[in-house]
């Protein structure tokens, strides 16, 4: 396999972008990434998108986006793994470049979620769960993570206050991100007194419904060197699956796909989790960030909540988590999220994160993207060379 680098990144602002269409969002992010890399041609393209069909009534995304980006007739493939679609696009592009089949490949992600009402958005997102055995019975995504949260509280003594600290920290980080949907700083009391969505999760424990797109250009390290570009190398990418239904897991608080994907990525990279300087993780709900950090082996089960409350995961803590603001503050356009995580990693590793959110130590980083209630996960490890 050839060594692969990320040579260009681009993303739109995240938010309720009523003035911009599905295709325009993608093209804006993809054009930004191509300009950043200094390329005007692509060999191939992968687009992460959870549900163009349910959110905007559009499938056949590969053709649409290749057409409007002006790169047809290149091969363009839409990939889907619910909220891990973006990470899956990164993995697909990485495989294609590493294999030697293509040199310059775009991995993008896009979701346009605000063209439908709240009920339809809830329904569309719920299709990432088991439609016949979870969704049919009235499960929502906040509901599934709320059940994980209750089990975690019961088993480990995790509290609502610990979870609130995750939200407060991510909004503090997001307040420094010009692309964030909700950059406002919030307080622990503010989270605990916000409307309950699915007990024990409040509205401020939940990531929002968002429009947005992100893109990254992947190329062989040797080509990037010859182009004189800063080298951000992909050390490894791991993907894993688990039962689709939350109830089918032997241990509800353990995200097995996250653990396996992390191990695969670390093994390929030849490093341990202790060698990682910071990470972007899939905080679709506050409890998710806690459970993910435990599944990845950053903390022992039950220890991530107290660590979050103690400030260990803040930008100036010993293991910064979600310096971008995470899904919570930056926003969560589901198909784009996994690629937007890579955008933040590259900014930090280049030392170019905006508004003073640049981390002091940023040489090697990890991005963890997750589908559904943990039915799939993709983990990527990047390093500045």
């Amino acid at each position, binding site marked *: 396999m050839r060594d692969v680098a990320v040579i260009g990144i681009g993303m739109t602002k995240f938010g309720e972008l009523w003035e911009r269409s599905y295709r325009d969002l993608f093209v804006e992010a993809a054009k930004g990434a191509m300009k950043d890399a200094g390329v005007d041609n692509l060999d191939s393209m992968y687009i992460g998108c959870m549900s163009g069909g349910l959110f905007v009534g559009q499938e056949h995304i590969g053709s649409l986006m290749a057409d409007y980006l002006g790169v047809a007739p290149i091969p363009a493939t839409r990939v889907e793994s619910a909220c891990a679609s973006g990470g899956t696009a990164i993995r697909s592009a990485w495989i294609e470049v590493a294999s030697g089949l293509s040199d310059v490949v775009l991995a993008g992600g896009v979701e346009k979620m605000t063209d439908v009402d709240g009920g339809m958005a809830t329904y569309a997102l719920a299709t990432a769960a088991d439609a016949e055995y979870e969704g*049919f019975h009235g499960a929502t995504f906040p509901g599934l993570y709320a059940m994980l949260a209750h089990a975690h509280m019961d088993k480990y003594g995790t509290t609502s206050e610990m979870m609130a600290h995750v939200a407060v920290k991510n909004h503090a980080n997001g307040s420094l991100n010009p692309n964030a949907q909700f950059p406002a700083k919030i307080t622990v009391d503010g989270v605990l007194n916000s409307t309950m*969505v699915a007990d024990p999760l409040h509205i401020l424990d939940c990531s929002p419904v968002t429009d947005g797109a992100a893109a990254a250009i992947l190329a062989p390290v040797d080509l990037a060197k010859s182009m004189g570009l800063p080298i951000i190398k992909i050390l490894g990418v791991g993907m894993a699956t688990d039962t689709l239904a939350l*109830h089918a897991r032997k241990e509800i608080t353990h995200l097995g796909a996250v653990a396996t994907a992390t191990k695969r990525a670390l093994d390929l990279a030849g490093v341990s989790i202790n060698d990682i300087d910071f990470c972007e993780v899939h905080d679709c709900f506050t409890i998710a960030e806690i459970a993910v950090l435990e599944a990845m082996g950053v903390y022992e089960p039950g220890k991530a909540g107290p660590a979050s409350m103690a400030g260990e995961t803040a930008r100036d803590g010993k293991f910064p988590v979600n310096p971008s603001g995470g899904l919570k503050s930056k926003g969560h356009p589901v198909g784009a999220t996994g690629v937007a995580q890579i955008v933040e990693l590259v900014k930090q590793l280049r030392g170019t994160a905006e508004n003073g959110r640049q981390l002091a130590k940023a040489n090697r980083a990890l991005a963890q993207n997750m589908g559904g209630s943990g039915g799939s996960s993709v983990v990527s490890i990047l390093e500045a060379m």
Partner: protein
Amino acid sequence: MAQTLTGRVWREQPQRYRMIANKDTETGEIYFPPRLVAPGNLDATFEEVQLSGSGKVVTFTIIRVAPTPYADLAPYALAVVETEDGVRLTCQLTDLDVDDVKIGMPVQFEFRKLYDDNEASVIYYGYKAVQV
């Protein structure tokens, strides 16, 4: 929105009306819904079994922001229930005060109406659990 064709409803009736599962004849593992293969064993053979009618709450939530079909029912309790045969499933808890739900609470299953799809004139039935 959640347009459901009658064929799709009819296919799931053995599970929703009678909680029919299947049991791996070699390992004794019970699967609900029934599976065609066992994890790691394409040649597994199965026998049909009906799940035990009772169990206990493994974890739960109270859905306050509901999907469209259940909008009128909110707030409602949703739980992962483990049956006496060790099978876990997701269902609503009903006929109780949602604030009384606890992890470990014993429940039994009942046949109930879930919701109706006025557009397709179909009423969906299935299992819910009540406190013992």
